[in-house]
């Protein structure tokens, strides 16, 4: 298929349909309204169903029901709406239901603002709701990658029977870029039939009970052990990242994800023209986080710089990876402000000439 110029939100919606998802439940919130708007006209064209829910609480429980009935389903929202979904995300993880949740993050806390942000990193990667659970989290840096990761997210959700987030900032949702939907895309994994789904019990398989309640302590502990074993497999097999300039020499390793990494790439190229050597490691999977890759790449740098559209959240994972073997610096913007390439380049210079304060135990 030829490339098509599309807004990020629309590409996300189209990618879901092409991944075989015929069901969307959601509630309007800026800056992701173009996802439900797009699907409200596209889904009926492909025999699918679009439901505008009464709230994000409703939407997130509707995807629970639909996923429990064995169908591919997704929802999208932005930060305040994702907060409302956290109850359901915990239940979805507990009941091991495959769903895809797109969060086009906006600045917080509270109602915050509608401009881009990456301040929901903790919520997405550390559980977010109650109980011990994890969700896979994929962070695109372009419209094309957003479309690709949405397709992958459905396969990963089905394979692991687990919620998967696609975490973008407002830029990913709103910018227009050429995007191509590959017709020959193969599923990432061998996907088994969903014999566990509640589709009507005819006696030819065990009765399906979609549930996260275990009143017996030992049974619940075993369920938790099983979940943890699954998360360990995910941490082993699903790490994704990309490096820029890691092959040559570099003094500063920049760790950034999403659109921020793209800004940093521009900064890195400018710096290199001036003889200042920086490299970038871009986590694509935020859960599982590429700890090993960050550790190895940081070992070849004099210092590490983390850049985020937050007050510093991913930096905690970088600290875990680097484990005080290298000084770590941070540059972050909040409120919906973006990092400019000049700003990022200036920060790298400060790191190198000693003007930047090292971050410890941020």
């Amino acid at each position: 298929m030829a490339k098509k110029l599309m807004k990020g939100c629309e590409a996300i919606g189209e990618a879901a349909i092409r991944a075989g998802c015929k069901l969307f439940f959601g509630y309007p919130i800026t800056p992701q309204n173009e996802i439900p708007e797009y699907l409200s006209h596209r889904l009926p064209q492909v025999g699918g169903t679009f439901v505008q829910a009464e709230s994000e609480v409703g939407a997130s429980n509707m995807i629970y029901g639909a996923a429990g009935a064995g169908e591919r389903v997704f929802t999208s929202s932005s930060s305040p709406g994702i907060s409302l979904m956290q109850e359901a995300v915990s239940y979805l993880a507990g009941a091991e239901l495959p769903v895809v949740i797109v969060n086009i993050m906006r600045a917080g806390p509270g109602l915050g603002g509608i401009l881009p942000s990456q301040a929901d990193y903790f919520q997405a990667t550390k559980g977010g709701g109650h109980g011990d659970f994890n969700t896979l989290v994929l962070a695109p840096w372009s419209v094309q990658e957003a479309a690709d990761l949405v397709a992958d997210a459905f396969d990963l959700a089905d394979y692991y029977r687990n919620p998967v987030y696609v975490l973008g900032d407002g830029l990913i949702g709103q910018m227009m870029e050429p995007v191509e939907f590959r017709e020959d895309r193969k599923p990432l994994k061998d996907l088994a039939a969903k014999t566990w789904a509640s589709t009507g019990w005819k006696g030819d398989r065990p009765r399906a009970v979609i549930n996260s309640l275990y009143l017996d302590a030992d049974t619940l502990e075993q369920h938790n052990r099983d979940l943890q074993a699954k998360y360990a497999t995910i941490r082993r097999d699903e790490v994704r990242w990309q490096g820029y300039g890691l092959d040559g020499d570099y003094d500063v390793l920049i760790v950034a994800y999403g659109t921020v990494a793209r800004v940093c790439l521009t900064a890195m190229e400018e710096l290199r023209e001036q003889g200042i050597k920086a490299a970038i490691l871009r986590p694509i999977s935020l859960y599982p986080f590429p700890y090993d890759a960050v550790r190895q790449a940081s070992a070849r740098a004099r210092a590490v710089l983390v850049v985020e559209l937050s007050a510093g959240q991913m930096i905690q994972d970088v600290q875990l990876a680097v484990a005080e073997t290298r000084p770590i610096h941070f540059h972050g913007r909040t409120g919906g402000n973006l990092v400019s390439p000049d700003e990022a380049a200036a920060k790298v210079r400060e790191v190198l000439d000693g003007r930047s304060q090292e971050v410890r135990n941020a």
Partner: protein
Amino acid sequence: MPSGTQPVFSYPEALRDVTTHYCPGCTHGVIHRMVAEVLDELGVRQRTVGVSPVGCAVLSYNYFAADMQEASHGRAPAVATGIKRARPDLVVFTYQGDGDLASIGMSEIMHCANRGEKITVVFVNNAIYGMTGGQMAPTTMPGQITTTSPLGRDVSLVGEPIRMAEILSTLHTPGFVARGAVHRPLESVKTKDLLRRAFTYQVEGRCFSLVEILSTCPTNWGLPPHEACEWVEKTMVPYYPLGVFKTPDGGDRAPRPL
């Protein structure tokens, strides 16, 4: 069974032959049985998915011989919406208490009914939070003593009990809304008929249906089972009138002025 004899009473196929956790004398069990009988009589058990609530009926997924989903507190109508929209060929019901449906789940039930989701809601109103130990519900009667209204429900502070069947019947979207009870055999017979009508409307693909059922909680009301049944008749029925409030063709009206 000797040839030529017909069973006149048997265990419903849609109910699993297991011991339930309900208290002695609690009418949750009666309601379970009636739902199961209706599923059998309509021949839809094998394509039914039930949604359990959070409340005393939380373990009902162990009792119905059908595929089941367990929802979070109050969200069963949203979960049922997801199931039904994903698989319109399935018969989907929720089974919810009054705390679940009329308090924390008020938003989900109102919008599910208003969208006209073709599901059936079995709404068990026992005027109290049974599972958590007898706290006040939105349906608790004026003056009724509960663990969080130790001096009796003070309507000047917390308002009057919510009448869900009445509220839901004001929606313009077509639906079937009725209220029955199970404190006397005759009422149970009538209530089973309401349930049959409710499920039939769904099976025919016609409309949303809800049957509110006045139920007992002898344990938290502090009454022996037979006195609990009398309390339903004396205290609840006058405030929660029994009958059909709404049908999709608008044929029936509320049984008495409200």
